[in-house]
């Protein structure tokens, strides 16, 4: 399995740490209801198909990546920097 890091190029999966779904980016504002927290931390669409999830180029450039990926075929159709993403 390989990922193309926007900064480092085509790299082996061994260099990356996996976190989970994109939901972790949607941190509720302070004082938001606990249901928002549940959606942020626990509840997941968990699609069998295209999803967006978070990878960290731990043995590379230390960038967190937002990866568009198919959970059935493992095809990767997009990688962008978390820090540089369009909101």
């Amino acid at each position, binding site marked *: *399995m*390989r990922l193309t890091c926007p900064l480092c190029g085509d790299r082996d*999966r061994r260099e990356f*740490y996996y*976190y989970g779904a994109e939901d*972790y*980016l949607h*941190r*509720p504002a*302070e*004082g*938001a209801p*606990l249901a928002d*927290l549940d959606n*942020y*931390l626990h509840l997941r669409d968990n699609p069998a198909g295209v999803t967006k999830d*978070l990878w*960290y180029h*731990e043995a590379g450039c*230390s*960038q*967190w990546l937002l990866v568009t990926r198919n959970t059935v*075929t*493992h*095809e*990767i159709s997009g990688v962008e*920097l*978390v*820090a*540089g993403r369009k909101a």
Partner: protein
Amino acid sequence: MRVDGKGLIDRTKPVRFRFDGKDYAGYKGDTLASALLANDVRLVGRSFKYHRPRGVLTAGSEEPNALVEVLGPSNQTPNVRATMQEVFEGLVAQSQNRLGSLRFDLLAVNDYVSPFLSAGFYYKTFMWPRAFWEGLYEPIIRRAAGLGSLSGKHDEGTYEKAFAFCDVLVIGSGPAGLMAALTAGRSGADVILAEESHVLGGRLLSDGGTVGGMAAGDWVAQVVAELLAMPNVRIMARTAVTGAYDHGTYGALERVGLHKPARPNLPRECFWRIVAKHAVLASGALERPVGFENNDRPGIMMASAVRTYLNRYGVSPGKRVTLFANTDQARGVARDLMAAGVSVAAIIDPRPDASAVEDCPVHVGAVVIGSRGRLGLSGIQVRKGSETIEIETDCLAMSGGWNPTIHLTCHMNGRPRWNEDLAAFVPMEGAVPGLVAVGAANGSMSTHGALVTGHAAALNAVEALGRKVSVPLPEAEDMPYRLKALWAVEGKGRAWLDFANDVTTKDVKLAAQEGFRSVEHMKRYTTQGMAPDQGKTSNVAALAVLADATGRGIAETGVTTFRPPYVPVSIAAMGAGGRGEGFAPQRFLTSDQASRDRGAPMIEAGLWYRPSYFPKPGETTWREACDREVNMVRQAVGVADVSTLGKIDIQGRDAGRFLDFVYTNTFSTLPVGRVRYGLMLREDGLVLDDGTSARLGENHYLMTTTTAAAGLVMRHMDFVHQAFCADWQVRFISVTESWAQFAVAGPKARALVNSFLEVPVELPFMGVAPVRIGGVDGRLFRISFSGEEGYELAVPTRYGEALFRDLVARAETMGGGPYGMEALNVLRIEKGFITHAEIHGRVTAHDIGLEKMVASRKDCIGKAAATRPGMWGPEREQLVGLRAAAPISAGAHLFVPGTEVHRETDQGYVTSVGWSPTLGAWLGLGFLKDGRARLGQKVRLVDHLRGLDVICEVCHPVFHDPEGEKLRA
């Protein structure tokens, strides 16, 4: 028997080897199977379940019968395919799975009671009486089962792993593979050609014929010579591609040294990870047997194998051979044998319209219905219409047609497609992105078809790479492939489908009868396809029999899934590098050697090694040393290397703001030159880590993490920064390995530290200052993990060892010295400081009594989740101290004295304990339900495992100097 004038073996290089205690001769280029056949050894093994006598069936890695143990000088290797093991001088092998000798295997009794050992019989019995399962039945079954043996000794062989990258990976070197490699190679692309066998050429070496107007073998030699001369082509012989994985990654096993006598540093095997932009699967096809009564006797072989033994190894597996086959292609076997002077008794062809014109008797529209010969074939019965013919023969070459070798195309869940014309499954296109199947692997059975499709696939790959090439196609035979599917001949007796697991047509029919009608159920119920050959020779026939039994078509019945590896791969090869200390990186302190010089036992702390204690002459237990070191710190001064703690250098205008966000407490208000203890939560509200952070400048902090969480915290901070506040002006980097840092603690700590400083520093408690030590810029922190006046001196790593040795030497002149992890642990327990024994991932700030450290006026990571109702309150266990006169233990559970001990009365547990020489008592830290409300009460500590049952007093966790007077002195 050896046949003169045939084969690619080197008759000038005889090789001696041993099988089952007897010496034999073969030639370089022989496999163990070919050499045994040359010596007329037909019986080579016993079957798995019925212990039937078995001989060589195939000439490849799909071999189900001829599995042997190869004995090396220091160890043995079980389940080696005799068909793949090349002979070498001194090779020693033996048969396996037998009780007694190979000829007189006592477990052959199983064959006589086979009616009671039908598919799945063990699910229906061995249930009574219950205790007999583990006491009697199961041990007998376990001993009878299994094939070869491991020795139980460590495998001391050498193994390697490697990565390779290429533009085009060609898998297989038959006509399709060679043509693909040649085409891609001439284009200048980086090519890897992987061939499982030790010679290239595939079936061209067995079948002969002409390619491009020259003998097939000559064409192979010419192409191989050209490929070898190309710098952009790497030929990997003895390399089986074992698996297809995501994004163009393939696993492959190279047999580096298995064909030679073992010698030090010669790897036995190398496991390759090949990353390829394109792959061409030219893996050919596997011939399939035909089911008929007693079709498993030694001497009954695949027709193609007979041809391979003749043409590649110069061996005829029999003196009077019979051919039973349903394709025109297989006739070549008989012709080659006769041309080589081997007698062919008859050809039996089930196709009524097949040609009867050969130089030997031909029975068309006939089938083999039985065989005889206890330890080797002596004759067969043939049914032709209503007539039964007896034929004397010692070798039956059988062919039921061919199955394309599609395994790799299924590794990513691709389902193969049934092709009625071929009566076989062919690959699903695009099943593995980037991989194209060609030649027989894709159902193109003629040599011409192989060359054309190999060439075309390579051209497509080359074009996609932006290259151009023109390679002419050589001419070759294009015989149509025409067969009448014949899976099993009707009959009453047992007809084997899966030779390796002893699965017969009866078993498959019984499965269907009992409702195991899904192909997966049939497989699992009968174990068909689950043997070492993974059903390579039996899967399709078995599901055809199942389809017939259930009245469905083969396409509807479907297939089980081929999964990696294509051929079995040793654990040692895929685990190469993992032996001993190779399993994980080792991290050493700069003081490591200095500690070892003092006799300190080094213990693992994550990936680090840290000194446990520093023994003195006369001390016989670690406790004596530990007690002395604790007293030394309390009364004089101790030195400890604390460089394993994570250190993160944080800079930028928003550094303080960022720390406020990741810590529960506030750091933006911390004055320059001061240090503050910080608590960090995970976003789920539980404690992630704790540590101190120092403010070195207006926009410059240095964070300290625990040893265990250093990497975790760095990753967490990168996430928080990049995900939530990427626009803040803050950057940070791990400097853990840039600094060596030493704790200096005790009443004489200040004196010891000052003896090093060019300008003595007066630091307040929790202060930090730059210092010069021996001409080097360092840092001095006044912090303490022991409860004594404490400092930490940091210098660039390269000065660490020198400083440590000097610190210890000077400390010793003051009645102090080094202290290890044991003493450090006792000191921190006395002071009630927590480690990851306490913050084990299930505790909140509230649980450890630090809820006030969660600042109310700002948001921070984890703050919201910590307010969930389950995260606080008296039903939760809270951190307490425990004090006892008798020994206590970590891992013990806590109960109310006088109550019964069981789960429902459980009040908590102990996380850390130590004998406190300072207080003369056993001290512990633990978690107790509503613990802070129970200070002063007694609890009963029970450790069943260590046999402890002790009454303790519940205390505040800070036992030593609760007011902190010593710290601030």
